[in-house]
């Protein structure tokens, strides 16, 4: 089975190019760039639209097991296919947490049966994500865990975290941290500043993020562990990240698309769909982060997909659950960086697909021959108004409800098989 994509605007994050060309897919792999159509191959006319590696979304919460009413593997897969996400990297903050090989195997087995996209899982760094004992890092690694994290729970016990890092270093496992000083950020649901003061919300200084990051960097320097910060969202953290990289530490950092496209003023009159962990930052911070993504200092953009049902959100702001769904809105929201912030598509895709795949040791996220044919075809300019009830996720908690967006996924492929195509497209 061969597919020959032609008249495609190829977005290649590896070479940093954005050019019209053709792409040949054979046996589920990309085999040739800019060659002729071989006999018997299915020709797909891309109509001059963008063809890019499918998104590798690092840090997706799926409600399975434990909260299937918020999101199941099936609905997450549907949302991902429509959003151009071809690989979901699941967070272990399920119930029970993914902290044993058995749970990991259960999730992997169900995921394969129910979803058209690739699903890989991260495992909890400590048992039950409770921050008390190390989880079975070696066995989980053998069972297929791609990284180890306690999600948005900070391991407060520095000595334990040091041991986890030292142990993980021996196995070459990647640790994903949530940089945040737990004492300073306790109870906070907004970023301290004029707006939070006016609204009377408990707030945390952006300094808490840098302090958390500095601590983790100390431990990384001490143990030599491989480390990825799940979200760096404040300008004040950037010099520390730059220094760590310059010093040769094996460190990368990510950010959610929400922190790149929204700021704390969006909270407005206590809109709980804009409540995130960490909270939305000031406009100055947001712009510094966009710049850092463009410069490559921040490596990964993710959706931090966090489904919450209406009941969890229809509460006073302080009591409401944090997080937003993002699998389906990640690509159109990222197009705001292209249209409004002047970032080039290959640079955006470096953070959406290439970097997360490489960091996790996956072969995808590229357009080079030999890479799996995980692809997304999209029109970066197609405008639409987002209706949250049209989303595929079981939960519809998106901050982009009613927002004018540009960028529509026309089709996506996983391993050369088409898993979604937009109505009206050939």
């Amino acid at each position, binding site marked *: 089975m061969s597919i020959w994509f032609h008249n495609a605007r190829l977005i290649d994050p590896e070479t940093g190019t954005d050019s019209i060309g053709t792409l040949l897919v054979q046996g589920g792999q990309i085999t040739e760039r800019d060659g002729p159509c071989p006999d018997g191959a299915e020709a797909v006319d891309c109509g001059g639209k963008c063809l890019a590696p499918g998104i590798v979304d690092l840090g997706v919460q799926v409600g399975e097991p434990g909260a299937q009413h918020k999101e199941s593997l099936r609905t997450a897969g549907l949302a991902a296919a429509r959003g151009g996400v071809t690989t979901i990297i699941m967070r272990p903050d399920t119930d029970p947490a993914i902290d044993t090989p058995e749970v990991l195997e259960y999730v992997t087995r169900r995921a394969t049966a129910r979803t058209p996209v690739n699903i890989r899982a991260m495992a909890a760094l400590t048992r039950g994500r409770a921050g008390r004992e190390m989880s079975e890092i070696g066995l989980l690694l053998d069972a297929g865990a791609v990284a180890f994290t306690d999600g948005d729970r900070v391991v407060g016990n520095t000595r334990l975290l040091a041991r986890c890092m030292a142990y993980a270093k021996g196995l070459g496992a990647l640790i994903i941290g949530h940089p945040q000083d737990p004492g300073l950020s306790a109870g906070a649901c907004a970023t301290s500043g*004029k707006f939070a003061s006016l609204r009377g919300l408990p707030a945390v200084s952006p300094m808490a993020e840098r302090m958390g990051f500095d601590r983790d960097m100390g431990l990384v320097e001490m143990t030599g562990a491989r480390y990825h910060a799940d979200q760096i969202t404040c300008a004040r953290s950037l010099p520390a990240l730059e220094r760590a990289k310059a010093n040769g530490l094996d460190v990368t950092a990510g950010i959610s698309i929400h922190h790149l496209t929204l700021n704390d003023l969006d909270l407005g009159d206590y809109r709980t769909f804009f409540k995130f962990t960490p909270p939305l930052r000031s406009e100055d911070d947001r712009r510094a982060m966009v710049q850092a993504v463009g410069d490559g200092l921040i490596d990964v953009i993710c959706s931090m997909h966090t489904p919450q049902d209406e009941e969890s959100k229809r509460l006073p*702001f302080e009591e409401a659950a944090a997080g937003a769904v993002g699998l389906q809105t990640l690509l159109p929201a990222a197009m705001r960086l292209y249209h409004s912030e002047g970032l080039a598509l290959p640079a955006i895709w470096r953070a959406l697909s290439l970097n997360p795949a490489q960091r996790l040791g996956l072969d995808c996220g590229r357009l080079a021959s030999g890479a799996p044919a995980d692809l997304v075809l999209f029109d970066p300019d197609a405008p639409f108004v987002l209706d949250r009830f049209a989303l595929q996720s079981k939960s519809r908690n998106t901050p982009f409800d009613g927002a004018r967006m540009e960028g529509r996924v026309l089709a996506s492929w996983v391993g050369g098989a088409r898993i979604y195509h937009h109505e009206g497209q050939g």
Partner: protein
Amino acid sequence: MTFTQNHLLGIEPLHPTEITTILDLADDYVALNRSVEKHGLALDGMTQINMFFENSTRTQASFELAGKRLGADVMNMAMAHSSLKKGETLIDTALTLNAMHPDLLVVRHGSSGAVNLLAEKVNAAVLNAGDGKHEHPTQALLDALTIRRKRGRLHRLTIAICGDIAHSRVARSNLILLGKMENRIRLVGPPTLMPAQVGEFGVEVHDDMRAGLEDADVVMMLRLQRERMDGGFVPSEREYFQRYGLDAEKLAYAKEDAIVMHPGPMNRGVEIDGAIADDINRSVIQEQVEMGVAVRMACMDLLARNLRKSRERARLRGAANG
């Protein structure tokens, strides 16, 4: 006479002329309250429900009396002990009450923004009686009325708000209102009790009482919650009183005829010296309580007028369509 609001959720949405409208009407109600026959008919036939998710004696009594004097049927619900403890959500409680067709809902809640959320879900006019650390609009209005009556005006005054600004909804509403009326506002308190970037609100921030009170026309003291005195925010009660408690020595820095205010309940010997609180030449704390009833009558009267108007419009629209 201008008042276009359907709810009173905070001072922030109010236009200065609306504030003046409320205060002018409240002046009339002060006169009514001082007469023997205290009954008005502004809320005749209406139902007022006081929902207090946080315990309150004074504010609830003030709202209850205001409603009764204007002829409303008033019901008090002490929500602190009720179905929310059984797991019912705020929205469900609101919808349940809404089905009983109240006209005025007076709400106090411990979370900032909770009253805004509730107002979206009910048909009644909602009055915020304090939400978390956000706003307490009727307190700011009664303070404004007290100042206007005592000082003869409500603009170009130097007003020092002292104490626990960070946790105070009274302070927020007051600094918004007094700012809208073009006064010079000083916030005085220890840095641990000052909200972040509060200087950007167009106020002066002081951590020294003497500098903060210098030539002030009005000194407004705030209550310091007991649980914040034991080393978490300030080292101790006595250190706080020594540095930030209002006594004769510190008050001497203010203008000679400066008035002293406190939203109550007071901690004598913590934020205010008992002798100052009782000094009838300086302290207007009892007047504040009196103004509270009148201001709440005025707010409910104005909201009821708008409620009647909008219902009448809806009825006419229905008749035209039918």
